Each structure stands twice: as C-alpha cells, then as structure tokens.
C-alpha cells in the first residue's frame, strides 16, 4: 500500500470576509494557522466582501502562485461570506447619484482592504451590502436582489472554486463565517434552482462546524464590543480545535 507523504504547504492562501481579514482589530484565524504551519502566507480576507470577490481573489492568486509553486505545495483556506453580499465592476464613474458608495479606507499600507476594491490592480470592484445606505447599494438591492438568486450566486462561486482547485489538484478547506452563507432550511434546500447546486458541494473538504460564528458562541469565551465578530481567543480556539484537527486528519499538514 502506498502512502502519500504528509508535508506542510509552502504557501498558505487564506480568504474570506472580515472574519478572515489580516490585519483586523483581533488576531484572526489565518494568522494563528500560519503561525502553526510556519510558512509563507497570502492573506486575502477582505471586510464586507461577498463571495464573488472571495472566489475571484482565490482563483487569481492561486494561478499566480502556480507560477512559483507546485500544486502540492499550496493549501487554500476559505471562510465564505454572506450570500447577500455582492459587488459591481465599474470602469468609470457615472455620477454621484449612482456611484455614491460606502467608502472603506485602511490607508495606503492596506489598499487591498478598501472599498472600492481590486482583484488584480485598480480598484474597480464596488462592494454592495444590504444594510448600507449608499445609492449604489440601495439601487442594487431594490432592483436585483433576491434571496434565492443570492444563494444561487454563492453556490456558483463556491463550486467554481471547488472545481478549479480539484482540477489543479490543490488541497483546500472551506467553511462558512456565519449562518447566512449557505441555504439551511427545507424551503431553500429543496428549491429546484438551488438543490442541484448545493448537492455538488464536496462537504468532505469542509470543516466539521456549521459556521465559525456558531462555533465561537459555544466556546464559552467572553465576547467583546463587536458582538458579531469573534475575539482573538475565539479565533485561536477555532484554529486549534477545528481547523488543525481537520487538516491533520486529512493529511494536509504535519501533526507537530
């Protein structure tokens, strides 16, 4: 019987929304994971980003990484974001009445974390969020948002990345940041336009929790000011108790 030799990745690629952003006000799971594995890490988490941005970031940066690394030297880790978060690509400003957007600015040192944001270069992707009151978001949600439609988009983003990673023989894990990533009630799960997509997700490559938020709320660790966001201690517990055991059991990293 031939056993594949377990080795640590040479490059860790982590992606998601604010739960996966580096830096954040708390030390998030990608940092704890990187410290454990002790390898070069590409932190792609972006606050408020939807799954379109996350999937594009992963595919683009993985393609770039493949120019330098072999597929078996990579490990991609994704914590998917809310299904109702979207983005619009705009080359030009059409005027204030449309492009009044919610600006996020972390300064020049962290230009990639801004809104508008970028995948490759130049910030032409405009994030829209349902609770933002800018005109772009309000127009988007007034005309184009549909709960089922959003789940379809998210499932397609997840599957596009899953198929891309499998075709390229790249190790990965996925999970959800919160309850609003995947459909989770019978109405949505059995909906004909959702069901055939949902059934194609390879959940054997997902962490053994419903989502990070739910896990954190079961840890008994104290919450802080930003109630919807995990603390450093929660991120550390999530890494040690959920991510590492999964990666070790899969043979994706060495058990120290």
């Amino acid at each position, binding site marked *: 019987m031939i056993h594949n030799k377990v080795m640590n990745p040479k490059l860790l690629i982590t992606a998601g929304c604010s739960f996966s952003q580096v830096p954040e006000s708390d030390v998030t799971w990608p940092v704890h994971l990187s410290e454990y594995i002790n390898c070069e890490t590409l932190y792609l988490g972006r606050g408020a980003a939807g799954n379109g941005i996350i999937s594009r970031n992963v595919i*683009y940066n993985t*393609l770039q990484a493949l120019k330098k690394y072999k597929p078996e030297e990579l490990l991609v880790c994704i914590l998917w974001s809310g299904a109702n978060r979207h983005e*619009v*690509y*705009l*080359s*030009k400003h*059409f005027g204030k009445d*449309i492009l009044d957007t919610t600006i996020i600015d972390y300064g020049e040192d962290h230009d990639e974390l801004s809104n508008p944001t970028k*995948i*490759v*270069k*130049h910030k*032409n992707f405009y994030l829209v969020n349902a609770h933002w009151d800018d005109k*772009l978001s309000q*127009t*988007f949600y*007034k*005309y*184009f*948002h*549909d*709960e*089922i*439609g959003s789940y*379809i988009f998210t499932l*397609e983003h997840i*599957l*596009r990345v899953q*198929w*891309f990673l*499998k*075709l390229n023989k790249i190790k990965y894990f996925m999970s959800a940041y919160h309850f609003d990533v995947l459909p989770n009630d019978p109405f949505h799960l059995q909906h*004909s*336009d959702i069901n*055939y*997509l949902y059934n*194609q997700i390879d959940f054997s490559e997902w962490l053994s929790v419903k989502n990070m938020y739910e896990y954190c709320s079961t840890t008994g660790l104290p919450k802080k000011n930003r109630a919807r966001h995990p603390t450093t201690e929660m991120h550390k517990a999530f890494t040690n108790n959920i991510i590492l055991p999964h990666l070790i059991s899969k043979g994706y990293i060495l058990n120290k």
Partner: protein
Amino acid sequence: MSAKVIVTAGCSFSTVEQQTRTWPFFLQEQTQIPTIYSGRISVGNGFISRSAIYHLTKALETHQAQDILLGIMWSGRSRFEYFYERSPLYSDKNNVRTMIENPYYKITNTGWSDDASVWLAKLLSDDIGSTILTIEHILRVQYFCKLHNIKYFMTEFYKDAVLPKDEKILKHHEVEYLYKQIDFNNFLPIDNMFDWCLQSGITLDEHHLKYQHPTQEHHKAFVNQVVIPFLIDRGYLNDT
C-alpha cells in the same frame, strides 16, 4: 465512441421550440442522438451556463460521463438575467424565462426600456465587467466538463458580442488571467456562427438579415459543415 445524449444550450440561435429549428435540432436529426434543447431566446451567458450545468448534472444521474456531449453557443456579454422570484420587480412578467420549472429569471438587455434593463445598463453594462462575468460563466462550464470528463464543444453566436476581439480588453489585467484559462481547443474552428453564415454562400433573406439571425438552411449547413466534422475529428461521433 458516440454520445448517448447531447445537451445543447445558447440563446435564440440555439432555441428549438414549435416551428423554430436551429442547429441543435439538426444535430439531433443528423446524429439521431437524444438531445436536450435548453437554448432560450435573448438569454445571457449566466442563464446559458446555469442551464448547461443543470442539464449535465441531470444527465449524469442516468448516463456515464463518456456518453454525454455538451454543445454551447455563447450569447452576448451585454445580456444579463437575474433570479427574481421574490424581488420587488416580480410583478413585471415581461421577458422572463424558465430554466427548470418556473419563469423565475428576468432577462435584461442593454437598449431595452424596462426599469430593470435601464438600471442594469447603468450598473452592469461595463464592458470589462461584462467580459469578466461572461468568461467566468464559460470557465465554470469548462471546469465542470473537464472535472467530470464530459466531452463538449463551444462557439460564439455573433461577432465580437461574446468574447471581445479588442486586444486592449483582452490584455486588461482583470480579463487576461481569465481569458488565458479558456481552452480554445474545444471551440469550433470558426469565429462565430453568424459570420460563418454570411460567408457560407447561402442566401440570407431580408427578414433574417434585418434581425441578424440565420435561416434554417444556415443552421442545417452549419451542423453538416462545421459541427459534425469537428465532432468526428475529435472522436466524439462515429464517422458513419
């Protein structure tokens, strides 16, 4: 080895219903292979890719992957659709399309005057943004087919409408890394169907010229002269 089922997808150039007979109809007629016609008038590439993956997923429940063949003719990158079962615009029943069982998809086109089309033109008709979305739809289908070892061919319906030919767009930083992933070995050896029709020597009557659509004669010739030779050359069809 010949396929046992063919899935076809596209826009009006690929729609088969009632008296409308396009290339998927003639492909079925020529090959006698059961064919699923998922082409729908005016739809964009989101709808087309979704339809293709849905029907391929269903086909995999009853067939081996090697027995399935997919044929897609991609549509205009400026065409969009959105799922609108519960959206505020659900009362507007114009220009809706059914993918699986209900007319849940509202389609929009730049140039149309309904609210959704007007706003969509402002928000999403960016040519770089449209190109990104269209290539992502193409790649999603390509990944799916390659991962499942499903044979497929792709082509474009109209010149410059699907994939841009302008080098400035193709070299754009957000487009280039996607475009380079497309496996053009699986594209038919033509630029697009309409240009092929114009060069075919078959007369395009005034009506079809005005609406820029091929005639049935064009569709039949397209199958015989382009699609089937490609499929035989690839070993996707037996040369009988």
